[in-house]
């Protein structure tokens, strides 16, 4: 019988939640890496026992953890204890160094700061890890300050795909209040050379040659909070999602506005429709219905909590514009949590499960595509990310 494994990153550690296909009874494992900020934990589609985790700290910086047994044990690739004197370390899995070589890195030294001046690019943390669809040892990392790195040796070593920062608009990128993070990495399952990424607050970008060259894909976005509402870059994209069967169709939750593109991001149009507010962070797509999408509306950019204290997921079965609130099992009074951009996921079971975590430490599951919800856990630290693995 199938089962699911939910990987939860929180402000104070990681948790692994497991259940059978009914998704009623859950085992909770953790905290793993207690006390550390776990920005993201994700499993390899090519080998579900291979997990990668981003472990960060304002004190001690970035650590990359890897598991080869589904999260039972963890290792820091290349960071193992050296057996004896004179033996050099084999690598440093937490070493993310921007490419400043003349050939590929120039002139990637500064970006725009909040006050409009130029500011040095400084590595802070890994926001998102995206394992390859086909190779367990290949994984991409989206980092703050915004850049994309790739490892092809199981996270031992990392190399920047510098064409992203170097394509031309990099010096115009500016951080949002939460930092200038590259938070979304979508690998096209039909075209291995195509990758989509998104940056707060620079916008969305695409490569069609495996990461060598990139271009902005922000046409159609309108952001009233920037000087030029339709600028090529500067849009605060919060999250993008796609369905694997139709990777040219993208859904975006922007700072404000829910957007859709039917041509791989070349042009976007708004599908906020009847949403009570179109601010939010997450967006995801049903595992088996490419036109069924989910968002969690948040009141506004200054009030990061649900409208009226009611936690409601909104579902569209028409690819946007027509939305219905999903409330059964979710708190409908006095709820003032947020749902962060990486904190929603879907499983692959026949009755698609939908999951999300809150800054209040709850992780909710709906085993029936959003009709009914139940908390898996109530009282974790603030949830930063939720991923789900469907296991056979």
């Amino acid at each position, binding site marked *: 019988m199938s089962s699911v494994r939910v990987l939860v990153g929180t402000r104070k550690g990681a948790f692994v939640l497991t259940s059978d296909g009914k998704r009623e009874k859950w085992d909770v494992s953790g905290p793993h890496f207690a006390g550390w900020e776990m920005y993201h934990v994700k499993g390899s589609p090519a080998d579900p026992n291979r997990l990668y985790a981003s472990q960060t*700290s304002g*004190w001690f*910086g970035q*650590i990359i953890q890897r598991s080869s047994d589904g999260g039972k044990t963890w290792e820091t690739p290349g*960071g193992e204890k050296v057996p004896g*004197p004179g033996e050099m370390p084999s*690598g440093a899995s937490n070493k993310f160094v921007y490419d400043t070589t003349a050939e590929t890195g120039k002139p990637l030294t500064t970006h725009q700061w909040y006050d409009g001046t130029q500011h040095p690019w400084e590595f802070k943390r890994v926001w998102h890890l995206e394992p390859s669809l086909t190779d367990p040892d290949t994984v991409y990392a989206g980092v703050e300050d915004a850049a994309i790195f790739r490892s092809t040796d199981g996270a031992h070593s990392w190399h920047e795909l510098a064409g992203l920062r170097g394509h031309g608009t990099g010096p115009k990128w500016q951080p949002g209040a939460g930092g200038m993070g590259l938070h979304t990495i979508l690998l096209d399952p039909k075209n291995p050379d195509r990758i989509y990424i998104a940056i707060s607050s620079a916008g969305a970008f695409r490569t069609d040659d495996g990461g060598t060259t990139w271009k902005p894909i922000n046409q159609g976005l309108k952001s009233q909070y920037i000087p030029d509402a339709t600028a090529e870059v500067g849009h605060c994209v919060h999250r993008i999602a796609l369905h694997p069967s139709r990777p040219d169709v993208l859904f975006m939750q922007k700072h404000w506005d829910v957007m859709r593109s039917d041509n791989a991001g070349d042009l976007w149009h708004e599908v906020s429709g009847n949403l009570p507010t179109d601010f939010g962070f997450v967006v995801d797509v049903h595992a088996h219905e490419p036109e069924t999408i989910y968002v969690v509306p948040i009141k506004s950019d200054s009030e990061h909590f649900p409208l009226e204290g009611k936690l409601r997921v909104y579902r569209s079965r028409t690819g946007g514009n027509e939305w219905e609130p999903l409330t059964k099992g979710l708190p409908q009074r006095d709820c003032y949590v947020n749902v962060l951009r990486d904190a929603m996921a879907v499983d692959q079971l026949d009755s698609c499960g939908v999951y999300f975590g809150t800054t209040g430490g709850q992780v909710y599951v709906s085993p029936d595509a959003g009709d009914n919800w139940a908390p898996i856990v109530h009282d974790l630290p603030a949830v930063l990310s939720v991923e789900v693995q469907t296991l056979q």
Partner: protein
Amino acid sequence: MIRIVLPQHLRTLARVEGEVTVNVDGAVTQRSVLDALEARYPVLCGTMRDHVTQKRRPFIRFFACAEDLSHESPDAPLPDPVAKGAEPFLVIGAIAGG
């Protein structure tokens, strides 16, 4: 033999308990001690000093013999009691809390 006291999170990361010890050839300085520590426990690379600049991370400080050595040159000799193993070299994280 140089004795080093790490903050709890770094002890967990390096999978050690209590003090750790390293041997240093030549002058005993912040740099040579931290180099030896990172060579012995590579997982600590980047956690106390920046990978590229080798500057001390902002929320980390170094103490020994009741002295704050955080702002000393990384190549300045550490106090004799540290070099002789009589006193530990302390790696301290900034206090967190309300």
